[in-house]
């Protein structure tokens, strides 16, 4: 019985999320009919792919109850590094591998510093992020890199389609599917969650908690590299500010998703980032200047977290005296 109840509650949250997405979509469509145009929906899908990958990476870190503020810096450094590799004439796959390898190393640096050497996460990742932000200027002193981009085929990641959907969206779906499987269907996922919930109890259960914390940072950096790769593919060049707009939506997506779904998870982040991307693109379409968008996203994040917080819900139900009456009724029946 309680099992059915749980399924029901989980389904109710998912339905709530779907309703929210549809509702937001409907409002935008009413205000700005172009929202539902082919070009606009395509744009949402592309932005969703980049934002979604960054948010997924952050999800691992948030699950082990840490923060990563190096996303923007790592994205910039990886963007310029991959750009330089492409410009040097390396094949696309080699450039991507180079970017991922760089990401793995950077993530490992933060991860090992934080887990094994017990440095504070926020300070460490700010430092690593800033260093990376500086290193991004290494190759060209800040000038844009675009040589060989067209020939390399990187723009296909943005333009090519498979079964009617953009390649970038397929990448997103594949990575999310794999992450969902690992995090909610395998013992590795349980170890991640246990590490975040109570590291001492996890350690006493034989879980290598430090390894999982370090791994979370590596995964976060890898996802960030993939995210910025899609941004390069869309713009056709590499610039040092390419990752600047990844971090805020990622945090908003992770925490909004967690607020609505009642916990951090791959599925929650997927929903959260979908909503955030719709909002960002919708506002852009309506002509809200980009420099307001971070503010708008933060506002929505705050609103979402408040709206779905337990204490507020209790307060509201307390106001209406809904629960006590219902409780009394069921008691009489018992």
């Amino acid at each position, binding site marked *: 019985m*309680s099992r059915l109840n749980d399924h029901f509650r989980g389904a109710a949250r998912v339905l709530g999320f779907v309703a929210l997405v549809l509702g937001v979509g409907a409002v935008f469509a009413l205000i700005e009919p172009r929202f539902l145009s082919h070009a606009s929906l395509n744009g949402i899908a592309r932005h969703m792919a980049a934002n979604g990958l960054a948010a997924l990476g952050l999800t691992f870190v948030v699950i082990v109850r840490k923060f990563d503020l190096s996303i923007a810096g790592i994205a910039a450094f990886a963007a310029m590094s991959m750009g330089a590799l492409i410009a040097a004439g390396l094949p696309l796959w080699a450039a991507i591998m180079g970017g991922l390898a760089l990401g793995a190393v950077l993530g490992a640096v933060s991860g090992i510093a934080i887990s094994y050497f017990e440095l504070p996460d926020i300070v460490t990742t700010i430092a690593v992020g800033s260093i990376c932000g500086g290193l991004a200027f290494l190759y060209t002193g800040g000038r844009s890199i675009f040589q060989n981009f067209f020939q390399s085929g990187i723009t296909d990641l943005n333009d090519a389609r498979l079964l009617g959907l953009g390649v970038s969206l397929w990448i997103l779906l594949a990575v999310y599917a794999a992450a969902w499987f690992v995090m909610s*269907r395998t013992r590795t996922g*349980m170890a991640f969650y246990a590490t975040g*919930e109570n590291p001492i109890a996890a*350690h006493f259960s034989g*879980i290598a908690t430090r390894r999982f914390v370090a791994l979370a940072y590596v995964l976060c950096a890898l996802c960030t590299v993939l995210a910025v790769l899609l941004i390069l593919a869309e713009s056709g060049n590499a610039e040092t500010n390419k990752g600047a707009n990844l971090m805020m939506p990622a945090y908003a997506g992770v925490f909004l998703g967690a607020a609505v779904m009642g916990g951090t998870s791959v599925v929650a982040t997927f929903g959260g980032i979908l909503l955030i991307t719709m909002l960002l693109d919708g506002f852009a379409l309506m002509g809200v200047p980009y420099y307001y968008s971070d503010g708008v996203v933060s506002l929505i994040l705050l609103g979402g977290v408040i709206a779905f917080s337990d204490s507020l819900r209790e307060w509201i139900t307390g106001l209406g005296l809904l629960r006590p009456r219902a409780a009394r009724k069921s008691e009489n029946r018992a």
Partner: protein
Amino acid sequence: MATPVLTASDVSKRFGPVQALRGVDFHVGPGEVHALLGINGAGKSTFIKILSGIIQKDGGTLTVAGREVHFRTPEDAIRAGIATVQQHPELVADMSGLDNIFLGRETAGRGLFARIDRAGLEARAEALLARFAVPLDLRQEVGQMSAVEREAVAILQALAVDGIRVLILDEPTSTLTEVEREDLFALMNQLKTRGISIIYITHQLEEVFAIADSFSVFRAGTCVARMSVAEARESRVSLAELMLGEAVGDVFPPKAGAPAGEALLELEGLGRPHEFTDITLQARRGEILGIFGLVGSGCDELSKTIFGALPAARGTIRVHGREVALRSPRAALDAGIFLVPGDRRSEGLALSRPALFNVPLANLRRASGGFWALRRGRLRRDAQELTRQVALHPPSLTTPASGFSGGNQQKIVLAKGLYSQADIYIFVEPTVGVDIGARAKIYAQMRALARTAAVVVISSDCDEVHGVADRTVALHKGRLVAPAARGFSRDDLLMAGIMGEVAA
């Protein structure tokens, strides 16, 4: 009798599907020490949380000194003179003991910038501490303190309330040991002579006769009995029977019939500086080895060393006759050792997660198959079976561990141990906060385990060690005190643990 200081009538409280309290009637008179009894999950802590303003009742009335009160926050209760030590006190881990005691009450003046009179605070704290003879450094951070010390800080924090009329203690002795318990009782008697009423929750039924004037028994969320201790003594009622609602047999199962088998765990000259030295012990298949030691005797460190959580400075550990280097709990688990840790909330459980998550945690290999994928059907069946075996109540696999009463949280840790299928089980303080009915079940579980495994019970409860173990030793200030002949009598064991001497 004088008018009660505190009364509750028809108080009810529901948590989702669980009706934790239904129509509780309760009162306590001035200067009365009143014990609140009931099995795990009977609703004692829930009731206390209502009296102290931490949660709000759904229905019913509360009065203090004859006037109806509505507690919306803990501040309201404190202002009405009700000071509480919760079952699991919430202290600020990275503040000192002193700062915790006066948290929010640092100054007489109001306003953000009122000055803090540190010297005055320290003097007040020292005065409180003098009455309560726990050796305690109040300048230490609470996060660094042991469970006993934290409990003491929480008690001092409650006593620092001005104009205190009622002091509520929710299972204070479950973490305290014999010596501190005596201090606490002396302190309670002192408060009583000043007219302060005390509501006292415990699972140690003999304490009721030692300290209380009267008691109430909660069962399934209602108060089913209230009587004076004198009455109870006269009519020879069984408290355990009142709590459980049925007759109880022996708490302790019969001792092992057959002689013990081969040694599964052998310690030789094990030591860690300043904690314990030269521990040589064997735990055999088929027997329960009991180690009695007070808090600070090195018991906790010893258990963690055997479990690989602390490195041994010297000595060797052999498992199944082979020397092993236990560098981590993982290595110990792989060698077949499972530790049921003493501090279940911080070391044993992911509190915001349900039993289904916690039970398999120490043996994720068993829970998964190819591609490390969880075998969810099997896991659910196994977890269901184990929670049934330990009599988890309510028998829910999906309620977060924090939603269970203290004793039932311990049962989840136990189920986790059973799932890990070790063959050397180390139990540290296994029945802290566990009611008498469930305690009997846990001891029976240990006995069942001991048929195929070696069981080591480490506890500061002498009766427990003596009652459940086949063979007992004591640990005193880090040194092993072993009996000359077959075993210790209960009193000899107590002597050995407290004084470090073997009776002639």
